[in-house]
Structures are given as C-alpha cells and as structure tokens.
C-alpha cells in the first residue's frame, strides 16, 4: 500500500464527518491480483475500505458526471486534468466536487507484469519502488519503473493540477521523456504502411466499447456509433466500421485527452488505443501550444480562435 493511503483515509473521514461531501469516490481492494475496484463510501467508518497503490490506474473522473451528490474524489495528476476539462465543459459543478489530490509515481501495467511470468500471477506485493511478484510458486522482484503503464512512463504531470486537499508531498515531474516517440515512428512510414499498421492494430477489436466507456471524456448521451437515423457507422465487424469508430472517437477527444491511459487499460484484447490520441495530442501541442486540462482559465484551442492559429496547410 502506498504511503498516501493514511492521509487519504484521514481526509475522506473528515470530509464525510463534516458533511462536506455526500460520498467519497475511490478504490477498494479488488478480487484479483493487480486490480482494484472503483467504489463509493458514504459513512466515515467505511474509510478503511479505501486503498491506494500502484494498481489504481482507472480514471475516477469517469464517475463524476450526471450525479446529484456532492462528491469527494481521489485524483492523481491525469484524473485532476480530466476534472478540469469536465468543469470547463460544464459537465461537473466545481462547487459540488471536493478533490483529494494524490501525487502519483506511476501506475503499473498488469499485462506487462504477467508477461514476465510463466504461470498465472498469484500475488503482487509492493515494496517502495519494487514489486514482489508470486507466480507458479516462485517469487521475483521487479522494479516498478520497468512495468509502468505506457502513459505513466512518459507522464509529465504527475502532480494534481487542481485540488482541495493534497494527500501527500508533491513529486518531481519527469523532464527528459520523449512523449511522442511512438508517434514519430508511425509518421516515418509510407501511406500504405500506415494503413496496414492501423489495420493490424485494430484487427482484434470486438466493439465492446470498453475504451469509450472507461474514458472520462466520452459522456455523450448517445454516442455517434449508436445513432440510427441516420446511421453514421455500421455496428458489425466490418474493418471500415471498426476503424471509423476508433479514429472518430479520437477526433472527439482531440485537445481534451490527458493521456490517462484508461482506454488502453480497459481494452480486453490489449489494443494500444493511445496510438490514435497521441498524434492528436502532439498536433495540439505543437500547433497550439496546448495541453488539456491544466488550467480552468483558458478555453481549449478547438473552442477559440486566435490570429496566430496555424494555417499553412490551407491554400
């Protein structure tokens, strides 16, 4: 368990006891190794259920919209940026959210950990920045930094950007990471190679929409893939429809995505979903100097017009 958990529980207990929030949204211990389950608690005595460790990658900002209660939510860096985006987009009322910010050292990827073991993983224990992994009766020690989620590996906003309470010491931000190495690799391919790269990437997709539903940004009452009059996208397994769903969803997240990795984490067939959004994030950064969800005071680039907006692609 992380050193933050005691502070988190104290804060949660106080907020509930003082009646400042109706409920706390956090994690409770999961039923499987490397998994925690998002949960809510409503009484101060229940705070001992809350956990916080390196398996808290799910973005809890996903659970804030369309609720009438005042909510205390535990938020890491990326989660807090999504909360900012929710506020800017009027999906969440700032006065009805109490943000318990938690500086994050990166969440681990359960698939990466499983790939290191020959047998099913039975348990994973945390010891500072190491993981002790038990599989097939054997134990091995793995440095956390070797099995971080891909988005955490290149994260430059580990501290919450907005919070009402802070549950730990601010952590140093990573500075010498290349956030767009994977995008550059694709940009270097020919159009045909690019087409086949994405064809290959999306071949396992089963249209379960776990990526869409895990994403805090996807809150449309009726998603474009579910519209039927007119029907924009087919609902079957045609590769054209599968590809359209993914790239169009990425476009809807352009300028809003915080690279929290919830989509990749949720996918049951392990598709590297972030490949779509990283390109758009890179373009927003390079062309508009924009990173989503860092401040409540600026409107996103697709929302505003400035004279210096790039237009050399327009003849």
């Amino acid at each position: 368990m992380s050193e933050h958990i005691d502070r988190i529980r104290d804060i949660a207990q106080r907020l509930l006891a003082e009646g400042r929030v109706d409920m706390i949204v956090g994690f409770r211990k999961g039923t499987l190794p490397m998994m925690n389950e998002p949960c809510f608690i409503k009484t101060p005595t229940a705070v001992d259920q809350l956990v916080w460790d390196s398996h808290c990658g799910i973005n809890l900002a996903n659970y804030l919209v369309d609720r009438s209660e005042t909510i205390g939510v535990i938020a890491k860096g990326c989660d807090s940026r999504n909360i900012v985006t929710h506020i800017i987009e009027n999906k969440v009322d700032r006065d009805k959210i109490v943000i318990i910010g938690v500086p994050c050292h990166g969440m681990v990827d359960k698939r990466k950990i499983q790939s290191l073991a020959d047998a099913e993983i039975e348990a994973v224990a945390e010891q500072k920045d190491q993981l002790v992994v038990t599989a097939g009766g054997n134990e091995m020690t793995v440095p956390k930094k070797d099995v971080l989620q891909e988005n955490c590996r290149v994260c430059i906003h580990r501290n919450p950007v907005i919070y009402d309470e802070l549950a730990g010491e601010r952590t140093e931000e990573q500075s010498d990471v290349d956030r767009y190495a994977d995008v550059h690799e694709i940009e270097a391919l020919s159009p045909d190679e690019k087409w086949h790269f994405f064809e290959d990437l999306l071949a396992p997709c089963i249209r379960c929409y776990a990526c869409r539903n895990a994403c805090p940004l996807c809150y449309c009452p009726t998603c474009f893939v579910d519209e039927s009059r007119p029907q924009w996208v087919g609902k079957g397994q045609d590769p054209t429809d599968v590809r359209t769903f993914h790239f169009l969803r990425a476009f809807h997240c352009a300028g809003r995505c915080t690279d929290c990795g919830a989509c990749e984490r949720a996918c049951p067939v392990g598709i590297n979903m972030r490949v779509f959004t990283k390109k758009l994030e890179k373009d927003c950064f390079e062309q508009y100097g924009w990173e989503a969800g860092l401040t409540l005071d600026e409107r996103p680039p697709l929302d505003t017009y400035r004279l210096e907006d790039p237009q050399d692609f327009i003849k």
Partner: protein
Amino acid sequence: MKLVSIDKKDWEKGIERLRPRYRLFGPIREKTYHAFQRLDEGQLPDLAFANTRLSPKDIVFPQSKAILECSLDETKADHHIMKSIAGDDTPQLVLGIRPCDASALTLLDLNFNTDEVKDPYWIQAREKTTFFGLACDTPQSTCFCTSVGGGPFDEKGLDVLLVDADDRYLAKILTEKGAAAMQAAGWQDESDANALLERRRGAAEERIRSVVHTDRLKDIDILRLHGAPFWEDISFACINCGTCTYLCPTCWCFDIQDEVHQKTACRMKNWDSCMYPLFTHHTSGHNPRGTKLQRLRQRFMHKLKYFVDKHDAGIMCVGCGRCVHSCPVNIDIRHICNLMNQYSTEDACEAQG
C-alpha cells in the same frame, strides 16, 4: 465410451487427414493471448494455452452475420425484396475447446433450439460442427466450473474429449459425430487407460480454488432479491461496456440492423449487450433500464436467478472466469453470486434499519 490413444507423433498426420473433410478451427496464439481461428493450410492448433480470450461461441454464433439481402436497383424486378442468404453446409471441426465452453453450448441450446423457437442459423451451425474438447490440467485461479455443475474434464457438449497424457492424447469418444471424425483422422488405437484419466481428472479438480455457492438461488424470492440493497454498491464501478457479454460463452443476445452498401442492402445479425444503455431503449424514447444499476442488476438476475427459475439447468454461467479476468473495473460474478446466494430478508430488515 470408447477410449482411444493418439500418439502425438500421429497428431499432425491425423489433422491433415481431417482437413479435406472439415473446416478446422483451433486455438492460435495472437500476440499476448490465444483465440480460436480457422486453421489455414498446414496450420496446427496451439494447445499450450489455459483458455482463449474470447469464447469459441463465435464459431457457431458469429458476432456479425448477414442473414438477408436485397437489391436496391429499381430496374430489377425483385428490388427491395429481402431474400435469405444461403447458409453454408461445410462440416466444421473445433479442436481444443475447453469443457466449460462446450457445456455453454448446451445452455445456448436452451435458448436457440426450443419447441417454440428454432433459430435456423444456430441449428445449422450446431449440426455441422463437431467438437473435440481438451481437458484442463491447470485450471486458472478464476475458474469455477466445479461450482456450476461442470468440471475440467466434463463431457457436456463434446463429441470427443482429449486428455493430454504427455506423449499421447487419450481420446474419449462420446458421440457418433465424434466417432466419425476419429475414424476420418485414422485415430483408432484403443486404450484401456481409464484409471490414468480418472487420476488426471481428480488432480485437475483439486486445483480449482474458486468456490461459488448457488444452492439457495432457486429458493430466494425473486422480488426480494431484485430489491436487495447491495445492487447500488456493486453496480457503481460498472462502465457499461460489452466486455463481459462478448467474452461470455453463455450470453446470447443479438441485434438486427439493416445496412446499405451502394446498390444492395442487407440485414445483419450482430451481438448485443444488455449492459449498453440502448439495449432496452424504446422507440417512444422510454428506457425501462436507463440506469446503470438497473442494467447490472438485470445481467446478474438473468444469469443467476431468472435462468435458474426457468430451466432446470443451474445458473447461466459455466465458470470460465473470462469476465472476472477481463472486466476493466473488477466486477466479479463470483462475489455477486455469493452475495445473492446468501441474501436473506433478515439482511434486508437490518439494512433498512
């Protein structure tokens, strides 16, 4: 039941003899997991797997299938008249299906092949497919087949059960279809290693660690269970995706959609999930299961209560553990089943204070 020994040296030869007679399917490793695929020329099934990520129900109940088509060309006499797309009768053989997934087929039969309703696509697919199961020697921590009337060496739904016995497979022939396939493959050496098979079965069953209780489900009052206080808590994490439904070997819901492609139109039958908000959306705009709680409760009430009451076949779950393993937010059917099974109205009185 005849027991045949297949020397592993004869495995490939047998498969090549089957190839001209059957369209073959088997588990193939894809990047990080196994999936049932059609076996191409010369391709062998990779049987070094626990279970596939998706269940093989796709082979007899495809995720996406065009069932009717018509021409939109108004110069043609039969324009806009929907016609059946002819089915394909080619015999299929699935190598390496696990007993849990095979027993799921018998549960799907209870929906698709009844006295009142006979789904022609299901029936045709079932009749043309032969299933060679592979018994499980190393069940996963998420497996609970023994809690639901199944087991790692269970025979329901199978035509032949294969047991890996190191240098050979022991094949238990269970049906005539199975016998025909074994003959076609030339796997005929009889064996009397029944004792070995039973020992392996016992050892595998011992390894199952997950226990799920279902004994009281039939007796609990349906409305009280529906109104139980724990639904709000267990449905909170759910993100309403279709992962559990699409990976589940016993889920059977589908949706009909029409698609237009230039001058032709077709009617598609696609998998659907009761977890999606649109699943029960009426054309009036009303949605009887518009909230997450209602949908999640529906899933588990269906599988663990309505199905139990309607059929005499236990719960609508075969304990494969896929939903447990793959749910992005760790909703666990084992936990929910135990909660439901031990629910009594005394608890309700306490909860209401």
